[in-house]
């Protein structure tokens, strides 16, 4: 049986993540055997080698993680986690909003909506540490930033407002949305770190 990648499917841009992972898995040569599956319960999580936590509304997704009793199963998930935007807020250890119960998988403090409202959302080419080739075309939508990181967290990219991409062990957390574009270099790098 091929490798299985899960996408947390409680709310947000789930189908975009599924498509992007399929593309990245194909480029890594396991497209024909790998599966990408929606995760709604702890049973769905079983057998996944990696998990994506998508963009969406972090307060909503946090509430649904609790409601669906997924907090501990995700905390104890042995595979790597690929988190974008709302996902980055959720995997952090400290969040500036008491309504969110962070998963504490990446030792960092995160501010939600750090750039402002939708009118302040932007696209920009940003250099990502260790990513060969062109700068990464990043799409920031009501994006968060990390304001502080623990020693075991590696910064991959930062902008004026703060840190926007980090790696921590097998986990990768991004303030922007690579799943909305065609560039799968970050997905591929994550898969490689997970041994996929």
């Amino acid at each position: 049986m091929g490798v299985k990648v899960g996408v947390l499917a409680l709310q947000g841009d789930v189908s975009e993540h599924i498509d992007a992972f399929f593309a990245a898995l194909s480029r890594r040569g396991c497209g024909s055997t790998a599966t990408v599956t929606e995760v709604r319960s702890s049973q769905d999580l079983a057998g996944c080698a990696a998990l994506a936590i998508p963009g969406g509304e972090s307060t909503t997704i946090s509430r649904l993680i609790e409601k669906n009793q997924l907090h501990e199963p995700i905390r104890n998930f042995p595979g790597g986690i690929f988190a974008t935007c709302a996902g980055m807020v959720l995997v952090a250890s400290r969040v500036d909003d008491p309504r969110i119960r962070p998963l504490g998988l990446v030792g960092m403090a995160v501010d939600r909506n750090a750039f402002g409202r939708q009118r302040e959302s932007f696209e920009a080419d940003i250099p990502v540490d260790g990513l060969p080739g062109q700068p990464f075309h990043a799409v920031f939508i009501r994006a968060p930033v990390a304001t502080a990181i623990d020693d075991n967290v590696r910064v991959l990219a930062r902008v004026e407002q703060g840190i926007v991409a980090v790696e921590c062990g097998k986990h990768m957390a991004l303030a922007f949305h690579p799943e909305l574009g065609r560039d799968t270099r970050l997905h591929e790098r994550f898969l490689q770190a997970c041994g996929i």
Partner: protein
Amino acid sequence: MKLEELRFGTELLKRGFASMQKGGVIMDVVNAEQAVIAEKAGAVAVMSLERVPSDIRKMGGVARMADPEKVIEIIDAVSIPVMGKVRIGHFVEAQVLEVLGVDMIDESEVLTPADEQYHIDKKQFKVPFVCGARDLGEALRRINEGAAMIRTKGEAGTGNVVEAVRHMRAIMGQIRTIKGMDAQERIDYAREIEAPAELVAECAERGRLPVVNFSAGGIATPCDAAMMMQLGADGVFVGSGIFKSSEPEKMAKAIVDAVNHFNDATVITRVSRGLGDAMPGLDVHTLKEDEVFQYRGR
């Protein structure tokens, strides 16, 4: 990263914002207190307005954009996105909402149209728009004008889901139809439904609208919301259905849970129990022609 290298208000940012709402419930609210209830219940966004649609029906007269004071009150009360409604064609109301910082504008038939010929030229704005549609042609005309999200019109303020079902089935059915057509037939069909041929071709190839497609207009219960999701909606708007029910907090949470588990009848059953009274309903067939909101704009 220099400021001049950043790009704001692009098509990708607008459609991307809409994608982040998927699987979510967007709730109508008329003040800060309701906005906080909606946010706590798990709404992905709130729609700020002066009156919910069922009250607009009762009041009659001309329904307009909400007072900016009210929009600001709601923006300040929550951290989730705030949307606002403007009259069809009223581009200055849209300019005002953009200045206020709303995250998405609903060019809505629930308000009294300001222009019976043209919709707003939505590509002129940095803020994304959502527009109502009854069928594929209408949806694609709105997308062609720059809408980043489509919602069924349904029949707002009735608590009657029948029109939302009709519109969702129409859009989904038409997409299935064009999938089976060849290139020439698609061009012919595009002419027939008065939609741009390129957008018809794009829908046929992708098997869905090029933007997120929500359902709205008459959703009053968790079962209504889950049915719209099973019919293919990416998410739902609930207007009068929450704050005109007898227990808004419970209803709001139940609808969020029903949308989250829309394929699981056991969960829908559980969350539907003991919710109190849903909003009072209205038979769409008893409305006079000028009381039917969905005929506004085409």
